[in-house]
């Protein structure tokens, strides 16, 4: 429907716009009706130019029609005029008949250059009428007027008379003369005592020379600034130009423009005696005038209408919540009464019975009350109801109203008297509420209303009614109280209120409603439901209307909505909008609704903050735990559940200690609690336990939440699981502290452990041993099998060697095939021996990598802490390294303990020499023997005597520990002699046991060069007759031989003559030259173990070895290889044609007593038997 309508409307508008001008400018004649306040010919003469002017301006014929009062009514009713130029009161009548009339402009009158848009009335009489001086003197005079509908000619003056308390002329005292001119004439001619004309009439007549101004005087003159006319009344807006409904809007607009544009000097204006037009004036004063005078259109009597009743009782009805029934009843009563009253008053004299019947219908009293000219009063008529109102009978007051006034409450009676007098004076409706004391002692409230009329005998008579309103007054009072209370509450609660007529959109807000959005109510006017819509957020408006609809449909008992409204400052204000429909239309539609607005912005903001906090709480990756002040858990978040594995329900009410892992001690928690107490928070790392028992690390912040008084209310713990971080850290630490390949501690951790061990040892009075371990033969494995295999070997060995240690000891890999161990808690130096043996054993055992069987051994150097002198960890390691080197020197696969004392003695020799001399004296030196064999046959060729110092405190010391001290010292010769003597003794002993074996003895250069060497050798041999010369072999160092080649050669030659053989020890390390080799009278060359040991790994060494072998062959020397550490070495030597060997693979140096058994049991490794002798060399 509405769509169709709007389409139609649009279509119509389109057509109208397209054809508009043709329609409105069709050759229709606009008819301008002018009210004839002057004779018609004069009017036509005056206003034809205006009609012409408008025709020209509008480009449309405008016909002038001058109409008198009756013609005008008919013409308007028949639609024969389109425009009216008429007086304001007539305009009111026309407007009242049809609301479709518009004032286009208001006339401006012009006089003597003064232009005014107001008119008034003038009261004139002859100048010589001494009896008429003031308005009061007009009482009962004959008055001439142009007509009762003339504003300036009757109505304005009538009001002044009323206000002054002068009766309006009527009957014979009122002469209706038709025009103003005639009124003036009648005054001048004495046919009337006074005349009423509109302002300007006199001045015009005077100007035209038709009147001698001195003949007339103006009664009740008013003083107005800038008003060019004499005037007796107040001023009212001038005549309007009225467009009737036949005039369309475009034409109205053009008419307005034309009228306003009319200049005062334009011929049309001058002809009409006007100053042009101004925009429409406010005709309210005219309306008020008509109402006061009860002139048309307000001539219905009494001035008491349904609308008035509604206006008057609206609040009571609406606010009091009276039922609709009561309202209707009241309205019906009033309507009924109104009709009845009118009829009753009209038929007063002739239809008494009817009146009485009627009166019975009306509660209260209907009466006539008359105030006589002498001031006394009486009730000519009163219905029987007067008994209920005043407690008197109609008869009792028929001639004298005194009893009524006596009944009126003393506090009210003066007021009533005054108002009656005022009503009498102004002839306006009397309306009062007052109290009456009834004879039975009750006091009632009554309300009376009556209309006065002046009677010709000078009395004033009222027709009216009075009724008992006690109940209503009480209700009113209660309502007032209630309203006041309600208002107090509204003001007190700072609540905005609204009332809304859902059907019409009419809306009422209170001041607070506007204040919430930063306005004064006044500034929002005009107020309608649009006002609310204008300020409300569109989204919320949508929600609001949905909620409203819900309420309207009865689905919600009331309406409630939170909405944003735009504050004057631009921000949004949150309001809580609540309401309820109070009244429904008969067909069930909502009619009146009222409700409140509360500013809830702060609450909303708090809500949002809370929501945000709640969001953070539930979505944080950090676990959050909230406890009460007793540390009982009151809330946890999802992350807590995720991290700890406990569900929320499981932990609520519990103490967080259920997470305790036990990894922190009491002191830790005490410190935490202390921080919380003193600083309000604690931050740190902590190990806790998950529900599944796993321990995890967390980074934890605990904050104490205090209330206003500073009391702790809650604790909030925020934590994140840093276990992965910790693990990563540990991993990094491991990488930093451990060797990646073997997983053994690295150099760094070693230093740490060593320091720790040293500290501990100092405290406990124990020793620490540093074990420097270097693998023998590892290089060869790497070279032959590749690094992968080498690595596997290292891993295997590391694992095995670690196991060889005691708990608390440390084995670290410090690079390549070098390891360092720290042995702690040692009561003495010897106690490390088992561990060292285990280590050697572990290193020497075969390692299997895939199908390969790998063999290496270890050389171990050991240093002991503490020492006589201050020593640091680095020194200890260096010492051990040095010792390891000694071990290597001593034949590998052994350990050597660093002798700090010896080391020191190198630095302080005297002491040491003395100690060695003493040792010699004390027989502390011993000889060990290492066998030399034919590797292929397994035959034992001999044994090398090796000196050891069986030190009473430091154990067995290798030669390196003491020989360097006595080198180049006579003691060396002495010791050498002891060795020779001893060795010879041993040979004798073995011979005695049936072991025939040669023994080689090392002879130092100094010893050899000693002049007595040969003789002393002789002496010794003589001392041991069981020893043959050939059983003794002397080994000299290549380097010592070269020192004094000639002398050495001589001694050697002499010895050879004696049958004693020589061998060159450490062959290959000196600067052997072919000449030297050729001339050196040595039967055997001992190839230095360094070439042999590394020949498997080092091709250079192998090449040298081959070269040495070649030399030996070329010079026909025997060759024996030192350093045969493994069977592999033997195999290789055999392959190279070197059949004789000495080394760990055959036998370690051993005490003399062990040798015979060894010699009996030893067999060469099987692989040596199979090795072909490439050299073809044989013994």
């Amino acid at each position: 429907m509405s769509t169709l309508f709007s389409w139609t409307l649009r279509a119509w508008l389109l057509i109208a716009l397209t054809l508009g001008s043709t329609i409105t400018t069709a050759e229709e004649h606009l008819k301008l009706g002018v009210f004839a306040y002057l004779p018609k010919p004069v009017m036509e003469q005056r206003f034809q130019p205006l009609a012409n002017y408008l025709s020209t301006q509008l480009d449309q014929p405008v016909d002038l029609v001058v109409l008198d009062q009756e013609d005008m009514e008919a013409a308007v009713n028949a639609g024969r005029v389109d425009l009216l130029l008429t007086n304001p009161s007539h305009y009111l009548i026309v407007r009242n008949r049809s609301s479709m009339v518009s004032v286009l402009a208001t006339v401006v009158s012009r006089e003597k250059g003064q232009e005014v848009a107001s008119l008034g009335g003038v009261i004139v009489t002859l100048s010589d009428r001494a009896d008429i001086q003031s308005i009061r003197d007009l009482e009962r005079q004959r008055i001439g007027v142009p007509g009762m509908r003339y504003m300036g000619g009757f109505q304005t003056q009538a009001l002044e008379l009323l206000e002054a308390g002068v009766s309006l002329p009527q009957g014979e005292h009122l002469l209706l003369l038709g025009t103003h001119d005639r009124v003036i004439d009648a005054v001048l001619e004495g046919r009337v005592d006074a005349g009423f004309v509109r302002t300007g009439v006199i001045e015009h007549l005077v100007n035209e020379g038709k009147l001698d101004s001195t003949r007339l005087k103006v009664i009740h003159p008013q003083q107005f600034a800038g008003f060019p006319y004499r005037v007796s009344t107040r001023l009212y807006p001038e005549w309007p130009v009225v467009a009737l409904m036949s005039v369309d809007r475009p034409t109205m607009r053009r008419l307005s423009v034309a009228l306003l544009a009319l200049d005062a000097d334009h011929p049309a204006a001058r002809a009409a005696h006007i100053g042009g037009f101004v925009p429409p004036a406010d005709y309210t004063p005219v309306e008020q005038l008509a109402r006061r005078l009860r002139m048309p259109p307000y001539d219905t009597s009494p001035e008491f209408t349904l609308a008035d009743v509604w206006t008057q009782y609206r609040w009571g009805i609406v606010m009091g919540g009276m039922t609709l029934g009561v309202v209707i009843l009241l309205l019906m009563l009033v309507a009924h009464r109104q009709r009845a009253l009118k009829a009753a008053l009209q038929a007063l004299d002739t239809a008494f019975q009817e009146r009485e019947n009627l009166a019975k219908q009306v509660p209260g009293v209907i009466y006539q009350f008359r105030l006589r000219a002498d001031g006394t009063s009486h009730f000519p008529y009163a219905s029987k109801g007067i008994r209920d109102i005043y407690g008197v009978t109609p008869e009792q007051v028929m001639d004298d109203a005194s009893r009524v006034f006596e009944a009126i409450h003393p506090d009210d009676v003066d007021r009533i008297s005054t108002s009656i007098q005022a009503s009498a004076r102004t002839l306006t409706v009397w309306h009062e509420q007052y109290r009456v004391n009834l004879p039975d002692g009750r006091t009632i409230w009554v309300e009376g209303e009556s209309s006065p009329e002046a009677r010709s005998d000078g009395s004033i008579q009222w027709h009216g009614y009075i009724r008992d309103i006690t109940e209503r007054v009480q209700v009113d009072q209660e309502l007032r109280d209630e309203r006041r209370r309600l208002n107090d509450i509204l003001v007190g609660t700072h609540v905005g209120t609204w009332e809304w007529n859902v059907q019409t959109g009419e809306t009422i807000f209170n001041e607070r409603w506007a204040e919430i959005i930063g306005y004064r109510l006044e500034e929002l006017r005009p107020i309608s439901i649009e006002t609310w819509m204008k300020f409300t957020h569109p989204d919320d408006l949508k929600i609001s209307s949905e909620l409203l609809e819900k309420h309207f449909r009865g689905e919600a008992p009331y309406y409630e909505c939170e909405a944003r409204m735009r504050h004057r400052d631009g921000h949004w204000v949150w309001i809580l909008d609540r309401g309820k429909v109070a009244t429904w239309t008969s067909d069930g539609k909502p009619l009146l609704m009222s409700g409140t607005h509360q500013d809830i912005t702060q609450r909303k903001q708090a809500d949002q903050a809370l929501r945000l906090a709640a969001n953070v709480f539930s979505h944080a990756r950090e676990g959050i735990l909230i406890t009460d002040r007793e540390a009982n858990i009151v809330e946890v978040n999802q992350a807590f559940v995720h991290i700890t594995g406990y569900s929320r329900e499981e932990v609520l009410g519990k103490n967080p200690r259920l997470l305790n892992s036990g990894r922190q001690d009491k002191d830790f928690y005490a410190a935490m609690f202390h921080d919380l107490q003193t600083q309000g928070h604690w931050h740190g790392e902590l190990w806790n336990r998950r529900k599944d028992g796993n321990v995890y690390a967390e980074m934890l912040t605990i904050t104490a939440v205090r209330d206003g008084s500073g009391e702790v209310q809650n604790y909030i713990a925020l934590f994140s699981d840093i276990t992965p971080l910790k693990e990563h850290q540990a991993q990094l630490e491991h990488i930093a502290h451990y060797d990646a390949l073997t997983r053994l501690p690295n150099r760094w951790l070693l230093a740490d452990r060593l320091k720790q061990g040293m500290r501990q040892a100092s405290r406990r009075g124990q020793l620490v041993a540093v074990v420097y371990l270097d693998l023998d033969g590892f290089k060869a494995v790497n070279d032959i099998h590749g690094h992968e295999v080498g690595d596997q070997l290292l891993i295997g060995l590391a694992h095995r060697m670690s196991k060889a240690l005691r708990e608390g000891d440390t084995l670290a890999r410090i690079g390549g095939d070098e390891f360092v161990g720290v042995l702690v808690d040692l009561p003495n130096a010897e106690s490390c021996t088992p561990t060292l043996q285990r280590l050697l054993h572990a290193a020497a055992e075969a390692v299997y990598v895939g199908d390969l069987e790998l063999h290496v051994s270890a050389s171990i150097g050991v240093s002991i802490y503490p020492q006589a002198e201050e020593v640091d960890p680095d020194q200890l390691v260096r010492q051990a390294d040095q010792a390891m080197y000694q071990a290597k020197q001593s034949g590998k696969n052994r350990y050597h303990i660093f002798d700090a004392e010896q080391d020191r003695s190198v630095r302080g020799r005297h002491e040491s020499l003395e100690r060695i001399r003493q040792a010699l004296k004390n027989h502390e030196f011993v000889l060990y023997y290492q066998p030399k064999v034919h590797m292929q046959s397994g035959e034992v060729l001999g044994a090398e005597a090796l000196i050891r110092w069986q030190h009473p405190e430091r154990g067995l010391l290798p030669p390196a520990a003491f020989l360097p001290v006595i080198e180049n010292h006579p003691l060396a010769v002495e010791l050498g002699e002891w060795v020779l003597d001893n060795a010879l003794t041993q040979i004798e002993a073995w011979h005695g046991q049936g072991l025939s074996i040669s023994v080689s003895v090392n002879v130092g250069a100094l010893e050899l060069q000693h002049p007595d060497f040969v003789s002393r050798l002789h002496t010794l041999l003589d001392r041991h007759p069981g020893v043959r010369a050939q059983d003794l072999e002397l080994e000299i160092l290549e380097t010592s031989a070269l020192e004094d080649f000639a002398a050495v050669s001589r001694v050697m030659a002499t010895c050879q003559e004696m049958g004693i053989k020589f061998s060159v020890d450490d062959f290959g390390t000196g600067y052997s030259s072919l000449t030297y080799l050729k001339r050196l009278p040595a039967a055997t060359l001992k190839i230095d173990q360094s070439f042999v040991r590394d020949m498997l790994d080092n091709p250079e060494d192998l090449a040298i070895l081959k070269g040495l072998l070649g030399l030996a062959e070329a010079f026909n020397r025997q060759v024996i290889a030192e350093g045969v550490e493994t069977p592999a070495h033997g195999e290789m030597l055999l392959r190279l044609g070197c059949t004789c060997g000495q080394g760990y693979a055959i036998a370690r140096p051993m005490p003399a007593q062990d040798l015979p058994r060894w010699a009996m049991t030893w067999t060469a490794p099987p692989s040596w038997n199979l090795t072909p002798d490439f050299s073809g060399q044989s013994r």
Partner: protein
Amino acid sequence: MSGCGRSEPLHVGLHPWPGYEPLLLARHFGWLPDAVHLHEGDSARNSIEGLKAGTLSAACLTLDEVLGVRVAGTPLTVILVMNESVGADAVLARPGIRTLTALKGKRIAVEKGAVGSLVLQKTLAAAGLAAHDIDKVNAAPSEQLPLWEAKQIDVAISYPPYSKQLIRAGAHPLYDSRAFPHTILDVLAVRSDRMRAHDTGLRGLVAGYLRALEHLRVNREDALRRIAAWRGTSFEETEAAYRGLHLPSGEENRRLLAPQGDLIRTARNLNELMTTSALLPEPDTLTNLTNAAYLPSDR
């Protein structure tokens, strides 16, 4: 019947000021109770003295003047706000004086102890001047024209209708109450000790005033031409004078006079301003300053 008890006469003081004219209109149309007697003085000073002396029970004054009288020991209660000055109170200066700072050292006519002092205070504050920077001449607006013509003053603080005289004599408006809204309120103030005795009269006085105000509203030309006639000014000038005034209706009055309404708020501000600028020797207690009970009921 005719022997109605005579009410005690209610003497009300006022002086020429557009905002008070509706009272004269009401009297002209007979809308005031018989007991009400209007006493037209030349300036506020007459009204203030009358209130203090007790010859007047009520008067039309500005709110600052009311505070002054109260602090001086005569209790007053405001029962009606007649207007707010939004431009009507003005600083008028000789043509050579074009800026506020130019006021320094000038002879300024101002009515001591009346609203002019407040205007001066506001003006000096805006000009950044101190009281000793100017030469103050104590003269009510009604007394200023001869001083102006005798060139004894350079500047005058005035209001209509007197300001018109000065403007005609060559003064130009330099600064006016538009610059400090909600400051100058003209009110009907009653001696608090006499309110009870004049209950009926005061009700009638307020009702008559509001009726005249309504007349001024709907029948503007009639009202303005009458006022212009008795003030000897033109219709246009009178109309212009009202442009500088806001005349609150009865309904608005109810709100203004409410216990926490705008009037109290304005009074608090004035109290502080006037105390700090020594226009008041001490702040007013503001107790019982307003009473809305004399306004017609809602109905």
